[in-house]
């Protein structure tokens, strides 16, 4: 098991290294130029100043040299400064990471519970009206654009009925207690849940139906196991193996969902941070934001592999 984890860790590290180069190159291709931005904010610069600044920041060097020196400082956790916030990238990234962690974590729990309940119900009542209703709901969830759903929820709950705040993270000047923050979480969590529950409901249903057809289920029934025991003891565990893997693999997609949700509800998480950094030419912040997101995704994939191997004794770990 340990050597399996070690080899997967090494693989993830290689992917991360490759991605860091890809992202570094892409960021360099974004519109604008850090020196131009400095020059624009201070018209007193002469052409010599510009050349000197370019040399000082190493921007006159070829791409590989620049990447190498960036990598060297990144290796000692020096990620540079954010242009728009004038603070070290760290200081801005960590709170955003926590914010997104809360949003994604909460939504994950809610939509997993919902998807499992609906998926198992649908599988057990296959082809009934209930099954069809759940199927329709799941399809609707998959087909609804996340930003449109967010907009609908904002319109109904905030604009029309005024039950909940439309955007932000807490009431400005308010007490900032738990209930206050929770209010601001309801709509974003609802949005992400609706966006992801559909896919996993269908996945759970399909997996459960397949398992229920297996010989060992028939054997368990024939030996007189009650229906609840058959479903929860014999079927569920096996049906969950592919579901768990797909859930863990969905982390990258969840980050994408979080990006839209946070942008719509003005929550300062990783997604909105990356989006604003890309749009605002904040190169260091965009670079590190993307790398953090990639790292988090790679780690969750690693966990998926381990969970898969652990849940399914038939998989050999070599």
């Amino acid at each position, binding site marked *: 098991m340990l050597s399996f984890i070690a080899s997967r860790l090494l693989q993830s590290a290689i992917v991360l290294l490759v991605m860091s180069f890809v992202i570094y190159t892409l*960021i360099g291709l974004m519109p604008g130029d850090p020196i131009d931005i400095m020059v624009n904010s201070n018209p007193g610069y002469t052409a010599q100043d510009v050349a000197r600044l370019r040399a000082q920041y190493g921007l006159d060097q070829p791409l590989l040299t620049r990447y190498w020196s960036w990598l060297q400082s990144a290796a000692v956790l020096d990620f540079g400064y954010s242009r728009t916030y004038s603070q070290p990238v760290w200081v801005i990234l960590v709170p955003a990471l926590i914010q997104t962690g809360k949003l994604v974590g909460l939504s994950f729990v809610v939509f997993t519970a919902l998807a499992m309940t609906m998926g198992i119900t649908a599988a057990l009542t296959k082809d009934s009206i209930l099954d069809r209703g759940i199927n329709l709901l799941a399809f*609707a969830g998959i087909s609804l*654009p996340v*930003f*449109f759903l967010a907009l*609908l929820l*904002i*319109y109904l709950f905030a604009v029309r009925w005024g039950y909940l705040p439309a955007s932000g993270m807490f009431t400005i000047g308010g007490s900032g207690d738990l209930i206050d923050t929770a209010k601001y979480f309801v709509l974003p969590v609802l949005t992400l849940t609706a966006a992801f529950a559909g896919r996993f409901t269908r996945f759970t249903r399909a997996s459960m139906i397949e398992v229920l057809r297996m010989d060992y289920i028939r054997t368990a029934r024939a030996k007189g196991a009650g229906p609840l025991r058959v479903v929860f003891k014999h079927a569920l565990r096996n049906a969950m193996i592919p579901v768990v893997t797909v859930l863990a693999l969905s982390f990258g997609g969840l*980050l994408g969902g979080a990006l839209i949700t946070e942008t719509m509800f003005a929550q300062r998480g990783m997604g909105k941070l990356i989006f604003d950094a890309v749009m605002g030419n904040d190169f260091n912040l965009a670079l590190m934001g993307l790398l953090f*997101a990639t790292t988090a995704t790679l780690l969750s994939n690693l966990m998926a592999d381990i969970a898969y191997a652990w849940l399914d004794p038939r998989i050999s770990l070599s």
Partner: protein
Amino acid sequence: MTKQTPLPKSAVASVLADKPESVWELRWRRLQGNRVAMCSGVLLIFLALFAASAPVYEQVMGVDVNNTDLLNRFAAPSLQHLLGTDEAGRDMMARLMYGGRISLLVGLLGAFSAAMVGTLIGLLAGYYRGRTESLLMRITDGVIALPLLPLLIVFAAIDLQKLGFSPEFVRSSAANFYRIVFIIALVEWTTVARLVRACTLSLMSREFVLAARAQGASARHILSVHILPNTASPIIVALSLAVGQIILLESTLSFLGLGIQPPTPSWGNMLSNAQELISRAPELAFYPGFLIFITVIAVNFLGDGLQDAFDPRAEST
């Protein structure tokens, strides 16, 4: 007990004519039995006609999609503007029709390009095995696992001039359109690649392929004549399921201001204008959002139906 659908005339006729029903006829018959998928197909044809008839609508109604009328903003539906006007006094109906063209074209073209890339990679991986296969499949798995939307945003923001394209080209709406298709193909090929590889692997051990190889047929000949035609059904199913994803992706990028650029209307960028005006004119957000929704759900139902029709044993996922 499963309900037995009565054999349609065509099937009876083919038996009477002593001509066996081809596999495509069988699939078509199965698809016809799926009411939801058939309704979705009809709805999609209507949506395509709706989008295609945009110039006709402009002619008949005497409106122009880009014609702004600041004295007539947020107009209610009338005989002159069937769905009223938007925040700049433009005809809402015409904009929705032109927006539909973009969404459907990007959906189809994006899915087609993604399928080409995916098929090529899947065929190569399945045929050459060994190192090539493991490298290609590692890349595929790697792409699947990445946080795609954040990365796509960077791709969409890239300054094409820095890649050596001329400023005129970079600013043209054609460049804008093809950039979106390219970005989409870049991430959506993975499903097709995996399916085609699996299919190629199983075909490689079939007698007709072994016979062709024994006769010394070239890789190119085997892949194009023996393998590719037999991978058609997984490709079609994956394509149909990808179209919905792609329409959603295009609308998301356009909504974020990184996709189709105004004044060219797309359902996504129409919503991004409407977001600011949600309390004043919610219908401006409702129309494009609803159209995206019914288009994508119809595509998904049709894709699901195709999957069942092509492979009735597999439970859809």
